[in-house]
């Protein structure tokens, strides 16, 4: 049984990496065969060499930590505001009536449409970038937690009523545990949105140290190896966030078997 499970896991791993391997092979083949101009698509080893160099002189690490710091600041601000707003809208009928419709319309406006406004209000420098990232993290936090409150099962609300729970006991024993999956979904989405917005802010607002800045630099100097390197890095960081969020979710929710 365990052998079977092991094989199927091995097979699954192979299937997962099959497409990336094929793409890498195609990449290598096309840049070496002269089919594609190596200036447009430098071979893989050039990108690896570039990574090695950039990594050694510390530039890439500086850029990465600048991006991550910005991302974290925006995420914390946006997710906290989104969570607070979601709780307010979920628990207060008055707040929902007052703010709900506006926030639903706000959701329909493309995120990047706010860039000009934010750039004028907060400046295109660091505060503007962080405000934009926070805005990106705000919506998924808000929507998921708002829905999470609405979806607290009626049977548990009744149980709390029957046990004559006060507001705090209701939050502690019923509402928050019942909402944890929704909170996680919201925070996970906020994390991903914030990371995307970080790169967006670095590309569309003023140049500043960061991965987006490195990417722009690569484009302007026509160094496609650098551009490709930053794209790979973005994917890796995003995947890292996802894994981290998934792990903490399983750790915290492992007891909820039913």
């Amino acid at each position, binding site marked *: 049984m365990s052998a079977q499970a092991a094989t199927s896991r091995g097979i699954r791993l192979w299937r997962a990496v099959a497409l990336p391997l094929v793409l890498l092979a195609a990449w290598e083949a096309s840049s070496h065969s002269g089919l594609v101009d190596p200036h447009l698509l430098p071979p893989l080893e050039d990108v690896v060499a570039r990574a090695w160099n950039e990594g050694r002189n510390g530039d890439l690490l500086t850029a990465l930590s600048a991006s991550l710091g910005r991302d974290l600041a925006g995420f914390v601000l946006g997710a906290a505001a989104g969570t607070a707003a979601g709780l307010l809208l979920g628990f207060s009928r008055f707040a929902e009536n007052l703010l709900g419709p506006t926030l639903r319309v706000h959701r329909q406006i493309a995120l990047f449409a706010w860039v000009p406004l934010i750039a004028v209000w907060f400046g295109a420098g660091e505060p503007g970038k962080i405000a934009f990232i926070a805005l990106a993290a705000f919506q998924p936090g808000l929507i998921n937690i708002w829905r999470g409150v609405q979806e607290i099962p009626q049977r548990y609300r*009744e149980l709390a009523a029957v046990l*004559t729970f006060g507001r705090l006991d209701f939050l502690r024993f019923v509402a928050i545990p019942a909402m944890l999956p929704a909170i996680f979904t919201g925070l996970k989405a906020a994390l991903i949105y914030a990371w995307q917005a970080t790169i967006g802010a670095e590309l569309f607002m003023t140049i500043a140290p960061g991965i987006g800045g490195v990417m722009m630099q690569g484009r302007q100097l026509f160094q496609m190896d650098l551009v490709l390197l930053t794209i790979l890095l973005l994917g890796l960081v995003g995947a890292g966030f996802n894994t981290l969020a998934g792990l903490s979710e399983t750790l915290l929710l492992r007891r909820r*078997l039913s």
Partner: protein
Amino acid sequence: MTDLHLANHLHAIDIASLATEEPTAAPGNTVLSLSQVSKTFHVAGRAVEALSDISLDIAEGEFVSIVGASGCGKSTLLRLILGLDRAYQGSILLDGKPIRKPGLDRGIVFQEHRLLPWLSVEANVAVALRRSKFSPRQKRDTVRSHLELVGLEKFAEAYPAQLSGGMQQRVAIARALVNRPPFLLLDEPLGALDALTRLRLQDELKRIVRHEGITAVLVTHDVDEAVYLGDRIVIMQPHPGRIAGILPVGLPANRNRSDAAFLRLRDHVLGQLGVGHEPAAAIRAAE
């Protein structure tokens, strides 16, 4: 066709005579009194009468079974007694005072266990003591003793999902009793369990209720269960939900399910619910 009419006719007489024969008054000291309770739901703009003119007195220490088909409003009635729903006509008095909201004087076991999946068995019972004035030590002790009462002291650390359906419902019973309420309300508590577990838990319930000496109201659609557990049986019929008859059981506390008197009573209740052999037997007797 005519047989059916005759049956219905006889049936109506039967119910009418019972209603006059058996008054709604409880035999002892009345602790819960419902009089002329009616409840109307509004579904899609239409008024649906869920309960109509329900009058019932329940005595201290009594075990009352309310039996009826689904839709007869028996669970709605429990919600009113619980204080979860205050939109009704008539009066419901608990110890002479109208019920305004849920209180710890009424423990409830729902059909689904409603245990909180994120709390251990022990914590699920202890959570009912949040409003209790006990010291932490007293709380621990009373949770312990109630887990022992339902035979689950060894599973205190387990989580609800790790238990069988019967065990989950035992935890729910312990939770309902941990505040030592004078009243235990049971809303089809065994309805979702398999037949064998249900029989076993009926005995458990009987033992526990007697042990605690509390007043119990059981809502069920299982006639056998109603007769087995109840001191009195309230028979309800739907559209609108109303009391069709109240029967004293008058059987010894240790009932035998295959006893002739038990079976007679069960068939009688089934007859009043419009199923079983009672109407047919009545027709034969009339002929």
